[in-house]
């Protein structure tokens, strides 16, 4: 303690001077409190206000992100904050921008799900939790210290647990929530164990600290391998790659559909940002001589792509199918991670952004069908295409994008990922990269096989069920059309998004 005393004023002033790099996160904290208070004081009718405040606040945060970006650019592209706890760099801001905008989209979508909106407590708490989790996600994108990594991951995890269990009247949903908490807690423990091992080996928590890598290199492969595997399992749980993907189908199926849309997109994007931060430190500073990240992540990527896509083929429940497909997409995105190139990172962000838009749109339309007809299984979609032509056509286009066929944003995303991997392959001729690309191509065909089941039932089969039209769902139709147009637009002119990343 006495040793620290002289440095405290210096550290404090450093922290204070870093605060202006941290404005979006401060705004988020304020917004979190504001929404919470609005819920408390406005009372029963707070739902609308909470939502409006949340959305408006996130849009402000989006502009603050933009300012943060220019600040980071002025400061040379990368700024370590709060004595190395966080690292602010331009791509982290890109991740944040995408997270914020997607969250706005999700907040708009939340009350449109009949099952979720009839919740007797109302949705005000859900908005509060969402804002809280966005703060955690922001931290995840910048975390470079083992401690901040753990804190950020936990912050997101806890809010995710609450969201999954938010609507727990059905046994299935409660089961999903409980499973998620248990598995999540276990994975956090594993992550923490890995972190403590790394700390023990190196005596430092800062992964960019040269001492960290030097000491780690001096440690034997068995210890390092174990520690890194444990950390990867912890992060992988969020990313839902194989073999820590087992929670995904149950949770995605059990949670309310908008919550599934949230879980399958935003935390995944942040987890990729975190993985990039973590892996970059290992690749950029002093690569460990024995532990080859590219090998490990490539192998995981291949297995994930295969397992996710092949498992999806057998699914009947639409949400479950999309859950497995999202595992497959994680595997595909890992391909861009292992390039370690700036181009690869850009492709990754682009791929994740368009995947997220398409996935949210797909779940939005699944909500629409459930609201209208109660259909949840693929076979219950029979003949609905003729009853709801507009939404169904949008659904087909969105699924085309998820498959990665032209003309859709999904295709351009795939193209960018393939080109970045190819560019790296051309330099180092790593056979793993080739295997990744071939697997990526093969699973595209497999994914078509299950995605096409939805158009198949919508249009090719005749349904018999009579039911009442609910005409109050015009908003969903409007948003679906908007997202579909966006997807097609990005399929034709991807540079509008790619350039600003």
């Amino acid at each position, binding site marked *: 303690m006495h040793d620290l005393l002289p440095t405290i004023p210096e550290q404090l002033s450093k922290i204070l001077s870093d605060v202006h790099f941290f404005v979006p996160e401060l705004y988020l904290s304020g917004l979190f409190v504001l929404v919470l208070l609005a819920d408390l004081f406005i009372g029963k009718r707070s739902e609308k206000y909470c939502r409006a405040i949340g959305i408006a606040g996130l849009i402000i945060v989006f502009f603050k992100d933009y300012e943060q970006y220019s600040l980071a650019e002025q400061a040379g592209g990368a700024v370590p904050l709060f004595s190395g706890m966080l690292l602010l760099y331009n791509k982290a801001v890109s991740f944040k921008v995408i997270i914020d905008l997607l969250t706005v989209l999700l907040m708009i979508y939340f009350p449109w799900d009949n099952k979720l909106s009839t919740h007797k407590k109302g949705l005000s708490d859900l908005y509060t939790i969402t804002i809280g989790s966005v703060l955690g996600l922001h931290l995840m994108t910048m975390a470079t210290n083992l401690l901040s990594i753990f804190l950020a991951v936990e912050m997101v995890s806890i809010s995710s647990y609450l969201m999954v269990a938010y609507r727990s009247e059905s046994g299935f949903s409660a089961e999903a929530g409980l499973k998620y908490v248990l598995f999540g807690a276990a994975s956090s423990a594993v992550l923490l164990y890995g972190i403590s091992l790394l700390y023990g080996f190196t005596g430092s928590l800062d992964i960019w600290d040269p001492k960290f890598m030097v000491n780690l290199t001096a440690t034997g492969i068995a210890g390092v391998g174990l520690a890194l595997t444990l950390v990867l399992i912890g992060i992988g749980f969020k990313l839902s790659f194989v073999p820590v993907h087992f929670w995904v189908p149950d949770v995605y199926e059990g949670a309310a559909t908008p919550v599934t849309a949230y879980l399958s997109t935003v935390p995944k994007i942040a987890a990729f940002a975190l993985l990039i931060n973590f892996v970059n430190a290992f690749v950029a500073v002093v690569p460990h001589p024995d532990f080859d990240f590219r090998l490990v992540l490539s192998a995981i990527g291949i297995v994930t792509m295969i397992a996710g896509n092949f498992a999806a083929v057998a699914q009947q429940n639409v949400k479950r199918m999309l859950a497995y497909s999202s595992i497959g997409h994680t595997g595909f995105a890992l391909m861009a991670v292992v390039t370690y190139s*700036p*181009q690869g990172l850009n492709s990754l962000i682009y791929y994740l952004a368009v995947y997220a838009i398409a996935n949210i749109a797909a779940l939005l339309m699944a909500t629409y069908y459930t609201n209208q007809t109660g259909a949840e299984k693929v076979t219950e979609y029979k003949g609905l295409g003729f009853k709801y032509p507009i939404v169904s056509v949008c659904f087909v286009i969105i699924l085309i994008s998820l498959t990665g066929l032209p003309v859709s944003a999904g295709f351009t995303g795939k*193209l960018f990922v393939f080109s970045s991997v190819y*560019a790296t392959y051309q330099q180092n001729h790593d056979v793993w990269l080739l295997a990744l690309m*071939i697997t990526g*191509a093969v699973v*595209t065909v497999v994914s078509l096989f299950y995605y096409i089941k939805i158009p*198949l039932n919508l249009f090719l089969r005749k349904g018999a069920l009579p039911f009442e039209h609910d005409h109050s769902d015009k908003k969903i139709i409007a948003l679906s059309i908007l997202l579909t147009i966006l997807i097609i637009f990005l399929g034709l002119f991807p540079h509008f998004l790619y350039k600003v990343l």
Partner: protein
Amino acid sequence: MNLLTILIFIPVLFGTIILLLPSSLRASFKYITLLATLVQFALSIYMYLEFKTGAGFAGINHEDQFQFVQKLPWIHLDLGSAGAMQIDYFVGVDGISVPLLVMTTLVMVIATVASWEISSNVKGFFALFLLLDMAVIGVFCALDFFLFYLFYELMLLPLYFLIGMWGGVRREYAAIKFFLYTLFGSVFMLLVMVGLYLSVTDPATGNHTFNIVQMMNPANYSADSIFSAAAQQTILGVPARVLGFVVLFIAFAIKVPVVPLHTWLPVAHVEAPTPVSIILAGVLLKIGGYGIIRICLGIFPEVAATGAFWLGLLGVVSILYGALNALAQRDLKRMIAYSSVSHMGFVLLGIASQTAEGISGAILQMISHGFLSSMLFYLVGVVYNRVHDRDIYNFRGLGSIMPKYTAFVMIAFFASLGLPGFSAFVAEAFTLAGTFKSSTTNGLLPYWMAIGGSIGILLSAAYFLWTLQRMFFGKTLLKGGEVWRTALTDINVRETLTLVPLAIMALALGIFPSLVLDVANGSVLALVEFLKK
């Protein structure tokens, strides 16, 4: 506005009109579609007449020799270390694509008339039909690989729905099989495309480019790139360029289709409604042949030369296997589907010979088969619409109750089996001549392949004549009895008007093959010269 661009996007314009009109006007949709295809046909005829021939307009690997060119910058991205990505909206035609364009637009008109019977969900049908139309024309015009791929893949979805929603009993199976097959070919094509794009730089701008014409020039490949001919890189032990060629060839061979990748075709053709069968057989199979000429041969000429024997072998196998299968069918539509496999084998054989005669023959065969297979499928549709049966053994002596119909069937059958005076004869004769010549000039194909091809012609005569004898000659005997007899009325004016232009084209191309060959010749010679290098 550029003529080609108008030609490509006219269907979209009309399709949008159809989508916007209320369903109460559904009776007008077919006329709108007909108008769209007729405008397209007129445009393509105009382009055919305006097309300049000669050595200075050969196209192939000279960007400045393409005609009706439009080149607009489309996607330009700076990718940092990997250089800039340059994708252009680049369309243009040379002597190989112009005849195919005319054929395609005419077949589209025929297919529209054949869709007169479609009664359910008319709006969806014609909207998808026009989308497909756009994609098909786009494939023949695109000179940028990215654009080509976009159009190529864009065909799949409309076709999936056209087969799946308006098809026969096993339509679901047929539609998904077709989709998966083609997609399997094209996802790997995507990988090769990305590899090529990263290997090739545009000499003018220094960017990486998807320009197909630039990809044909070995000087544009960066020294250390995967597909550089000089670098001789390998992928998994296989020379990279050989692998690239094989992957692209498989993608197109699925479309052609080449045995053994043909199994989607009989199912899809049989289950598809008549207009879609016409488009499938008449136009889509040609995209495979066109792709092999333009892309496989153009970008990997030296691999095409070393692999010519195998290409030729696959061609001969397709000819014989398709013909033998056709002989064994009792479903009329299936028989015609297999005859397509057999006839498209000639295209591959002609391409493999890499002689001027062979490649001209291949192009002529594509055009001829485009008209003849449309006619054949339309004729099957006539019977099927009337009695919903097309089993060869359920009909006998149709000649006496449907004389006009029988006359058209005879024209189509005799033209298809290669009777002199009809287009298929000239095409097949050229192809075989090219194959014979190949063994003495460039030594790519052995003599026996030409003999194999001739046997294929003999077999095609066998199955066509046998079918003619079984179904149309003899005493009238129908499985459906009197009901069928009254249902089987002779063809009406609309049907006659559809069949006449096709019959005229088959005859005209048989008597004046120069209609196609004059236009194509310059490009074919340029291609042969290019391949010799």
